[in-house]
């Protein structure tokens, strides 16, 4: 069950970026753009959500891409081709609302490019003109460029250090596009919460509808615990069942970011133990 059939290391310096292809025929069959899985690596492990970033219906496999941020992703990264992921649940969350909007800008920051990929694909298939903005700290950690080119009419790249594409943030590029008078019907933003917040700040004055895919802390992923809750338009929503995508202009990002910091101290301890065990 859940056998890893392929492994790719995108970036090997810490925090490393890795991608797995996992056999999960039942999940592939039902998966739609925007949905995620929850997995567990070991008997004493925690449950973490990861987005399905690509899939192969014929082979019955899904792809997951992750950065080794803490204990669980580090443990996950140790698995190899042929290993099994202990527990894998999905597809979870609501699929992205896909229709022909016109011109759509897909913004992916850091490893957020991976979760944007299936959405860009679906939007393209629905007949939209897809312009993708991919942002990375530096050229070496830019992921999925080829895949994104395949499903976009145009790809623009930004790096924080100017090593590739435009020197700057994804928001600089987006702002430039809007100010140049380009008609944009929808923006989809996935990346670090601060990036999503900033993208929403850019699009809000122009009233450009903006989806943000929220990456809150989760436990069950089926609406049972409320760990994932966020405030959207003044109302409490559960990201795992009501999301993960919401109208970005309505999301209380500051509250969400504070909630993401809940277990910072514990995450540090777990990470240190995990790193010690590997040395």
């Amino acid at each position: 069950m859940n056998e890893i059939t392929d492994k790719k290391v995108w970036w090997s310096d810490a925090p490393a970026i890795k991608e797995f292809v996992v056999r999960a025929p039942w999940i592939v069959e039902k998966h739609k753009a925007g949905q995620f899985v929850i997995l567990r690596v070991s008997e004493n492990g925690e449950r973490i959500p990861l987005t399905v970033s690509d899939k192969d219906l014929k082979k019955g496999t899904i792809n997951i891409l992750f950065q080794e941020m803490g204990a669980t992703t580090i443990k996950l990264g140790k698995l190899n081709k042929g290993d099994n992921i202990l527990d894998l649940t999905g597809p979870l969350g609501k699929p992205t609302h896909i229709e022909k909007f016109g011109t759509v800008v897909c913004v992916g920051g850091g490893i957020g490019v991976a979760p944007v990929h299936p959405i860009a694909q679906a939007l393209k298939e629905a007949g939209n003109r897809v312009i993708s903005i991919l942002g990375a700290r530096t050229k070496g950690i830019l992921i999925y460029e080829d895949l994104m080119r395949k499903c976009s009419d145009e790809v623009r790249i930004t790096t924080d250090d100017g090593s590739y594409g435009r020197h700057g943030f994804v928001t600089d590029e987006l702002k430039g596009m809007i100010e140049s008078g380009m008609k944009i019907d929808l923006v989809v933003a996935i990346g670090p919460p601060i990036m999503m917040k900033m993208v929403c700040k850019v699009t809000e004055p122009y009233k450009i509808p903006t989806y943000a895919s929220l990456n809150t802390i989760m436990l069950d992923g089926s609406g049972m615990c409320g760990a994932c809750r966020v405030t959207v338009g003044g109302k409490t929503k559960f990201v795992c069942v009501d999301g993960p995508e919401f109208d970005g202009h309505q999301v209380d990002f500051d509250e969400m970011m504070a909630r993401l910091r809940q277990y910072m101290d514990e995450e540090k301890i777990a990470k240190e133990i995990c790193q010690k065990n590997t040395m």
Partner: protein
Amino acid sequence: MAEEKKKKKAKIPRQPMPEQDPHERAKNFSEVTYGFTAELSLNEAVRCIQCKKPLCIDGCPVSINIPEFIKKVAEGDILGAAKVIKESNFLPAICGRVCPQEDQCEMVCVVGVKDKPVAIGRLERYVADYEALHGKFEMPKMAPKTGKKVAIIGSGPAGLACAGDLIKTGHDVTIFEALHKAGGVLVYGIPEFRLPKAIVERELDYLKKIGVEFRLNHVIGKIRTVDELMKSDGYHAVFLANGAGLPQFMNIAGENLNGVYSANEFLTRNNLMKAYQFPEYDTPIKRFKNVAVIGGGNTAMDAVRTALRLGADNAYIIYRRSRDEMPARKEEIEHAEHEGVKFIMLTAPLRVIGNEKGWVTGLECIKMELGEPDESGRRRPIPVKGSEFIINLDAVIAAIGTNSNPLVAQTTPGLELNKWGYIVVDNEKTCRTSKKGVFAGGDIVTGAATVILAMGAGRSAAKSIDEYLSL
């Protein structure tokens, strides 16, 4: 002679339950009570006067033949007693521990009129634990295979009991469970110190041994819908036993501050994910110093006692009515009190107060007084003007009840629901829903109730499903 015997019996007091010292146990997660010894069970068993018309049986939702099993205990035939119980109750080691006996079998026991009632629950637990230790696994009588397949959604007491009965009728049974562990509330909700997980594990093992298949990590409504199970996957009937797992919050300001939890989250972290053993287990939980739990049910007691065990200096129960109205089992309320939980009665929360970093610092509350009885017959709490006050806290846990989780219902067209979103069945014996071949039972039909009722519903459903499949 007979007279004398009766007198003698009446003199034996209700036997006390051996338990861990309250100060000790408030710091560990081991089971609070040790269970009866052979001697205690014998002393207790002879207190039953073997009524001709045993009221206790009517008090038990699944009508266990109580005098019969107690008689066997008195005779020292514990395995025989276990057989009697198992005719009606599929999960006696669990029910003996968690049934609200004081409202059920023991409430109507005649010995209770003049003295304390016979400790039926404790005896039941003794018998079940004895059997687990000394009984041998016996393959139950299995009917020949029928070639029919049944899908059960949810592995709580309703799903497990249904599976246990159905498999014996010759149908293939598969349980689909959303989480990575089976057991429902028994594993994610009720803590280790009240229901050791090894006991649940034993029941699951038994079901696996007799051929029930478990598909964990399957959220029905997502990976598969009920219609797909029946139309594409060849299941001839479906039993919905997905419980009432949607947490309610209080709808007050500050509810999304760090340190505010639903009881479901707080308990799931600790029970299912074993966060109390962090960092041995990866899932974290904060060790809060001042914790308030809002609510007065079993869930509230479990949450507050868990907070205490995680090292809280002050663990409060805040409840809007008075102690007499608290719906939790009496024994749990007493245990909580002995362990040092502080009860703030006739009080309701108004808003959660936080600091600039987004963490809870306190809770503003208001005092209540009891007015006229409401529909439920309990006196309605009314806020007392000007009685607002603030408690300093670093965590607030909402244990004010749960609702139906809409995932399954939303993806099952043709399934009739009531106005609260619970599944409508034609009656509690048949468990038939408005959709052909689809049955339902347990909390998803009744709303949050009890283990024994869910178990009973599972067994009724098994019977009804077998009848349906034999048509």
